[in-house]
């Protein structure tokens, strides 16, 4: 208890050059500190502006475990608030999304707030006259989160008022979001349906690490992707066209050499992506009419440049993954030290053929659903790790693959695609954003 609170040195000591201590995955105090430090100091994905198309539209979300509410104000601005009434703390909105009209109204005592969060009215207002209510915190309305950036319709927020700026935090990593949005002939994405939700009984970081773990697919997914390839070979008969489903499963069985040459790019602050030269998404069939639309919109050269950048998984530290080529975003929402809610969203590329959306939806249910056999393979590994890490035999997790002495942190680099350097990159950022506002030392225990 309180081994790590206000003890930045102890937290930093959990991350070594080539290994991390198991407490980062299993210790409840570390999880609490992630909620108090790591998540507030980071820029966290809240939602997509297409979910807030009209004034009065709102969505609810969580930043770490903090319930938040985002709304579109009458002037078109997007605001993010802590989702609680300033009166008694009742959540202002409880649905995932909706339209509140001209104002939010607390269901408990009918305090109402404009969609920019300002207090609009209180019933029996005269009861507050002469009480000094003008100076009360409650008079300010909904507590607004100051640091909110909408980047190409992606809404991010940072709870810490004095944290690293959005531009410094993400830097060049935003190029993956750019590429995903540019894949729409109109340069626009839209959320048109709910995400697939999948509960994982494991620490959230296991999921994040797995996104750039290229040495597991041909092993852990032999049972799913390997079986899909095998069954198709047996059943295909005279068919010359590989079905979309087999095109999606097949590349998971690519050999180590494929992943080695496809490369990993790392960026400062824990961001990075697999699939630099090419990726498992490179060889899907062309979709009729799409290239023509892209050329018409962007010109020949630019259209090919956009479609030729087929990144695999981009981790935006700490807890989302963007798959630009398939237009999917996975949000790894921490619930407890051993519990993570995964919400996998598919964006519709506005103006593009339906077939692209059909393929993205298929990919999402094949890989990211509680009914997905690839998901079953992965979750089994995470659960076994969550159990296995209780072992006292060895308290360290090894992340040494392709480590080089003197490796620089917070740099941009392209490296061998089977390196675990992106995981090391994440843990460097983890230690940084955990301790950036933490006391350096504690007094010796009495």
């Amino acid at each position: 208890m309180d081994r790590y609170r206000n003890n930045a040195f102890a937290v930093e000591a959990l991350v070594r050059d080539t290994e991390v201590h198991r407490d980062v995955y299993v210790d409840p105090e570390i999880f609490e500190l992630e909620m108090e430090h790591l998540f507030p100091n980071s820029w966290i994905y809240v939602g997509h502006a297409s979910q807030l198309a009209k004034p009065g539209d709102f969505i609810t979300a969580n930043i770490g475990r903090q319930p938040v509410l985002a709304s579109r104000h009458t002037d078109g601005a997007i605001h993010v608030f802590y989702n609680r009434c300033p009166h008694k703390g009742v959540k202002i909105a409880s649905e995932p999304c909706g339209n509140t009209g001209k104002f939010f109204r607390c269901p408990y005592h009918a305090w109402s707030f404009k969609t920019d969060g300002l207090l609009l009215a209180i019933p029996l207002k005269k009861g507050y006259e002469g009480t000094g209510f003008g100076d009360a915190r409650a008079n300010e309305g909904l507590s607004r989160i100051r640091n909110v950036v909408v980047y190409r319709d992606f809404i991010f927020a940072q709870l810490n008022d004095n944290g690293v700026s959005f531009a410094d935090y993400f830097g060049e990593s935003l190029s993956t979001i750019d590429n995903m949005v540019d894949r729409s002939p109109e340069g626009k994405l839209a959320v048109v349906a709910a995400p697939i939700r999948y509960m994982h009984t494991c620490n959230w970081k296991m999921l994040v690490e797995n996104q750039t773990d290229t040495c597991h697919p041909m092993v852990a997914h032999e049972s799913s992707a390997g079986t899909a390839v095998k069954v198709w070979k047996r059943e295909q008969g005279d068919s010359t066209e590989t079905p979309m489903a087999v095109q999606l499963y097949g590349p998971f069985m690519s050999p180590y050499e494929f992943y080695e040459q496809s490369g990993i790019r790392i960026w400062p602050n824990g961001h990075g992506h697999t699939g630099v030269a090419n990726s498992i998404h490179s060889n899907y069939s062309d979709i009729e009419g799409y290239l023509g639309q892209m050329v018409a919109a962007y010109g020949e050269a630019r259209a090919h440049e956009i479609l030729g950048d087929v990144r695999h998984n981009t981790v935006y530290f700490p807890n989302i993954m963007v798959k630009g080529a398939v237009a999917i975003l996975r949000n790894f929402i921490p619930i407890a030290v051993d519990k993570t809610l995964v919400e996998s969203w598919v964006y519709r590329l506005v103006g593009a053929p339906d077939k692209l959306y059909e393929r993205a939806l298929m990919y999402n249910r094949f890989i990211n659903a509680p009914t997905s056999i690839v998901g079953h393979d992965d979750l089994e590994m995470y659960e076994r790790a969550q159990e296995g890490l209780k072992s006292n035999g060895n308290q360290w997790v090894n992340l040494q693959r392709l480590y080089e002495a003197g490796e620089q942190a917070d740099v941009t680099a392209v490296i061998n695609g089977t390196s675990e350097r992106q995981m090391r990159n994440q843990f460097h950022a983890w230690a940084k954003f955990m301790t950036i506002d933490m006391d350096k030392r504690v007094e010796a225990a009495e």
Partner: protein
Amino acid sequence: MITEKNITDFIYREADLLDTMQWQAWLDLFHPEGRYWMPLEWQQQDPVLQPSLMYEDLLLLKVRVERLAGERTFSQKPKSRCHHLLQAPQIVACDPEAGSFKARTSYIYSETRGDMLERFSGWASHDLVQVDDGLKIKLKRVDLVNFDAPFGNIQLFM
């Protein structure tokens, strides 16, 4: 001539094959063009351009069945088992002339693995067609009452 009793018997047998893990015999109940669909929306209409939990043809169902027995299928070590508790099927359409039949069956489904047991409630809708003297599944649609909740692994068939 297919009767209403043939339809209900078929649905009970289907559940029994799943509960007794006779996977191949279960697959044999499907029409070659048959589909297994688990929607992700209330009264969902479109399995292709709206998100679903599953929408699988016979090829993909075969992959699942073969995977369950795979030597390196670690999520099946230990193996899952399931139990269907069905209400009497409601016959929605019975048209022997056209050879097409529909039924809707309310159920409680349990899936267990190791020490865990998860329970689900919903409705199964069967679109059946007559092939020779028997019935085949054209579409089995599984609507969970809480389709939008975040589940852990669902590895077998409802």
